């Protein structure tokens, strides 16, 4: 990077605009028409000075303001309403309180955005005129519109708007897209049970998936009930081709439904490990082989019973079945499943059997080669779920991001409304601001609960399940920011303690708030069917857990016994890919993937530089062009840069450089406080079957309910274009040697 800084990033905005525009070869008198070039110039400087991200954001905020024009919030809602973009209730509410609502708007809050964050808001979230495509709202109007779409009074709107404009809490993308809109589909994810093993049921499911996809929801769907290849079809005396052709149709259907151009449709298929088509299922995402047996758009997940993992440990055989022969297995878990499975084996019903480790190895290969085939654990999911107190209520799958666990059946499509707290916004130099965190949780739970009533449900099955169980998923983002600020390496005992405490505080407060809501509105209709109604809270499944606030838990337990809960489930840690970008923090509970990387999104490419690292390097006089280039050459790693002191290198390890055991331990320690689950990505630069099989067996033994992607790295990389020093052949061959020939001894990847 040879770009010179053009103006100090804290200079006045006019000066920066002039400087940026001058650099772009633009006549400064023609501002602001040429602002776009100035924004691009400022964005390009981020690599040298992260503060330019804020500069670019401020320039963009000006552009947006000009595009929207004069008039306040209420006027912007009115304009959007005139175009049919806003629902009647919302329009009435805003018109009735126009002056008070206009007074809430704080455009100064725009200064909190990073460039990438504001760009994302501008390109994807702000309401646009249906024909001119000009934006109709400024960023703060957008937040207030979302708040008003969920509020019953101006005070409520102010409360939620305050959390959002300070980037302390953000609802999930569907809520941000659609709150207050004509069709307010506010839910992030939908989970559908497997279609019954009948043609009509399968086609009915495609229709449901399409209707749910249309409104920006991610789909999880099980396919475990559908008969396997070679199974007899009585009606025609033919043989079934198994599940693959059906999933091909699903694949095409999902790809066809583009979510209003804002996201591609997305679905994940779950299959139980005993299904006789499991091996073909694991090949669905391979990029070689017969394309007629591939599904390039579907994500894949394994719904793994404990019995399978036990047989892997014992190196025993594993039997595969045609669901037509053992229809009961899908609806059983725990000891009942184990008994039924063994009885089916003893009765000779198996289609065939193979060594459990061979199948497990095949699952690991799929993870390494495609990142797909997520390992999710059926028994842990059911054992600890608040909704499974009564027989017949079974969790059959997780969702597109493996953080939702709810019961499903033919009449119930599970739904989840999500939102995430930005932990970075609740951290001071000394540590977490616990009181503020709790206050945020209280507000967040109230509004998540509200989304259940305000939401539009694309299918009756979704409406039925959501109104009966009223589940919500409160999550977090920015854990990595907290740990950087407090200077705690991800694998330190202090990080484990803090991360667990955060999870506990959130769960404790969320349960208390849900009990308060139950006092106001009554418990959710299906409350009597939950474990909570029987005096068992999620935490009780972990007798070894040592909560920080045992006394408060006793109080909450008492309160729940008295009032019940308004929500059957409260906590789920979603990946927060897009909303963390808006909030300018690291994603959910993940470590950073690199100190320097680019994001590729539908909005273009954006350089992301770890600003904590840069600040530390500046303090120590080490933020030089040489070190900058060295970080870039090392793909965002600081481990081999001798000039950077040891303590910084330890703190700024990337996900590739941290022991994955630490990530699993952090996840396991917070599990008692997560009543649904968490989207836990695991990272391995050069995966081998041995390492992966050990890692996932450990995750299972640690009691994790689900895991998410396995992230690995390409075997070769591009030659860098913009570094003056050429890659030496030794360095190039070392890199290849490291990742391919000697993964065991490679220090860099451990």
């Amino acid at each position, binding site marked *: 990077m040879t770009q010179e800084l053009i103006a100090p990033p804290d200079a006045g905005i006019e000066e920066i605009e002039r400087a940026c525009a001058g650099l772009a070869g633009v006549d400064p008198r023609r501002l602001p028409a040429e602002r776009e070039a100035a924004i691009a110039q400022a964005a390009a400087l981020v690599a040298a000075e992260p503060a330019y991200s804020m500069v670019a954001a401020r320039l963009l905020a000006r552009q947006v303001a000009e595009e929207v024009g004069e008039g306040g919030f209420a006027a912007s809602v009115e304009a959007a309403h005139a175009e049919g973009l806003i629902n009647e209730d919302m329009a009435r509410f805003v018109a009735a309180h126009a002056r008070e609502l206009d007074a809430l708007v704080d455009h100064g809050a725009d200064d909190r955005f990073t460039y990438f964050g504001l760009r994302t808001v501008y390109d994807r979230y702000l309401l646009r005129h249906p024909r001119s495509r000009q934006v109709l709202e400024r960023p703060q109007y957008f937040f207030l519109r979302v708040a008003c779409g969920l509020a019953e009074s101006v005070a409520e709107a102010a409360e939620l708007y305050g959390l959002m404009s300070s980037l302390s809490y953000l609802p999930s993308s569907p809520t941000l897209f659609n709150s207050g809109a004509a069709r307010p589909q506010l839910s992030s994810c939908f989970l559908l049970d497997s279609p019954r093993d009948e043609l009509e049921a399968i086609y009915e499911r495609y229709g449901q998936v399409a209707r749910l996809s249309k409104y920006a929801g991610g789909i999880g769907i099980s396919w475990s009930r559908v008969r396997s290849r070679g199974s007899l079809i009585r009606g025609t005396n033919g043989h079934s081709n198994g599940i693959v052709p059906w999933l091909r149709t699903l694949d095409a259907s999902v790809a066809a439904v583009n979510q209003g151009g804002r996201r591609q449709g997305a679905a994940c298929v779950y299959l139980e490990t005993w299904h006789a088509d499991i091996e073909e299922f694991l090949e669905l995402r391979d990029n070689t082989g017969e394309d007629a047996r591939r599904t390039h758009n579907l994500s894949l997940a394994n719904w793994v019973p404990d019995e399978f993992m036990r047989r892997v440990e014992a190196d025993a055989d594993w039997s595969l079945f045609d669901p037509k022969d053992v229809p009961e297995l899908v609806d059983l878990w725990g000891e009942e499943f184990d008994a039924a499975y063994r009885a089916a084996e003893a009765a000779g019903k198996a289609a065939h059997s193979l060594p459990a480790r061979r199948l497990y190895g095949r699952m690991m290969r799929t993870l390494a080669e495609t990142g797909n085939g997520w390992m999710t654990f059926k028994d842990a999911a059911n054992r600890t779920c608040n909704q499974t107190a009564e027989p017949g209520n079974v969790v059959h799958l997780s969702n597109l991001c493996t953080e939702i666990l709810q019961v499903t059946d033919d009449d119930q499509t599970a739904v989840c409304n999500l939102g995430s707290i930005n932990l970075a916004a609740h951290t001071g130099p000394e540590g977490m601001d616990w009181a503020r965190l709790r206050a945020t949780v209280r507000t967040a739970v109230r509004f998540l609960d509200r989304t259940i009533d305000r939401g539009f449900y694309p299918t009756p099955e979704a409406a039925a399940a959501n109104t009966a169980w009223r589940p919500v998923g409160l999550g977090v983002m920015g854990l990595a920011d907290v740990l950087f600020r407090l200077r705690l390496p991800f694998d330190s005992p202090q990080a484990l303690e803090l991360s667990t405490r955060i999870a506990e505080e959130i769960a404790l407060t969320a349960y208390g708030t849900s009990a308060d809501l139950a006092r106001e509105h009554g418990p959710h209709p299906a409350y009597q069917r939950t474990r909570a109604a029987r005096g068992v809270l999620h935490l009780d499944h972990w007798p070894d857990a040592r909560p920080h606030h045992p006394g408060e838990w006793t109080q909450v337990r008492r309160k729940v016994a008295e009032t019940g809960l308004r929500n059957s489930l409260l906590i789920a840690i979603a990946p927060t890919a897009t909303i963390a970008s808006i909030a300018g923090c690291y994603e959910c509970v993940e470590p950073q993937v690199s100190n320097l990387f680019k994001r590729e999104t539908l909005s273009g490419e954006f*350089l992301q530089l770890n600003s904590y690292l840069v600040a530390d390097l500046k303090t120590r006089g080490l933020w030089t062009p040489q070190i900058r280039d060295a970080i870039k050459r090392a793909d965002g790693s600081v481990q081999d840069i001798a000039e950077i002191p040891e303590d910084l290198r330890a703190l700024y390890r990337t996900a590739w450089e941290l022991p994955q055991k630490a990530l699993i331990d952090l996840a396991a320690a917070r599990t008692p406080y997560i009543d649904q689950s968490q989207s836990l990505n695991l990272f391995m630069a050069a995966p*081998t079957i041995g390492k992966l099989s050990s890692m996932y067996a450990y995750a299972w033994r640690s009691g994790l309910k689900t895991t998410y992607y396995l992230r690995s790295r390409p*075997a070769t990389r*591009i030659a860098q274009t*913009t570094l003056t020093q050429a890659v030496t052949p030794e360095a190039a061959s070392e890199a290849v040697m490291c990742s391919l020939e000697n993964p065991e001894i490679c220090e860099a990847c451990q």
Partner: protein
Amino acid sequence: MLLDPGMNLTLRPMRYPAFYDRYRAAIRNTWTVEEVDLHSDLADLARLTPAELHLVNRLVAFFATGDTIVANNLVLNLYKHLNAPEARLYLSRQVFEEAVHVQFYLTLLDTYLPDHTERAKAFAAVDNIPAIRDKAEFCFRWIDSLGDLDELRTRHDRRAFLLNLICFAACIEGLFFYGAFAYVYWLRSRGLLNGLASGTNWVFRDESMHMEFAFSVVDTVRAEEPDLFDDALTGQVTRMMEEAVAAELAFARDLCGDGLPGLSAEDMRAYLEYVADQRLARLDMPARYGTANPLAFMELQDVQELSNFFERRVSAYQIGVEGTVTLDETF
């Protein structure tokens, strides 16, 4: 020695294990055209200005024939003369990758240009569009420069071979293609043609490796026969680079016309000169231009990607993972 005439068949002991490693690394990066979703680009195409559309059409026309030319040289010249089976393994793999690129650009062309006469015109560009024809002629001239050579017997033969190898690595894959990639990334920096860009990411990764392989062959030959490398060779390579830059710059002038937002033919000139200097530096030859990179968006291409999986398919997975199930490894 690597350039000695013959058809060596011995893999054990292996003389050039680094070539074999490159072959295996390449296999792990297998991708297929079916993984690229180009249809999302159609909406963008409808929004382009006439000047941008002109650029895209010219690019497609260049891509239509570019990789086929490279594959021809591989088969006609490089495979014949690089006398080590491990090197020929890599070249076989490279031929496959060129075939995937040809298929990718064919699919791109079929998707972008639904009209059959337009498609035929794109392929005819190599004869009809001066800026594309001149680049192709530059390539053909260097392919033909080894036309009569069946064996590299003399110093003169080997020098001729080196020039052909360097031309395809540094000037064609390393400059013509890098030029073309810059346009694609410029479009993407403005949020346009994400499908083309995601396929290009993979092509770019492959081309980087092809270039690095060729340069490591040059390094090997330099170690084995240092006397082949002298000032005269440096002079010849520098002149060849100059010609390539001139040809690519003519193409840039055709593409950019009177300038596009954030990209002008002048920017491209500076970028090409900058890239040419990089290639010379890799060959241990002095810089010819001393120009800095003006394209900030190319800066981004050097950085590891992190895709939002809702929006793009992640391209960073390996195939051919090894090992057996164990339960007690550290991770």
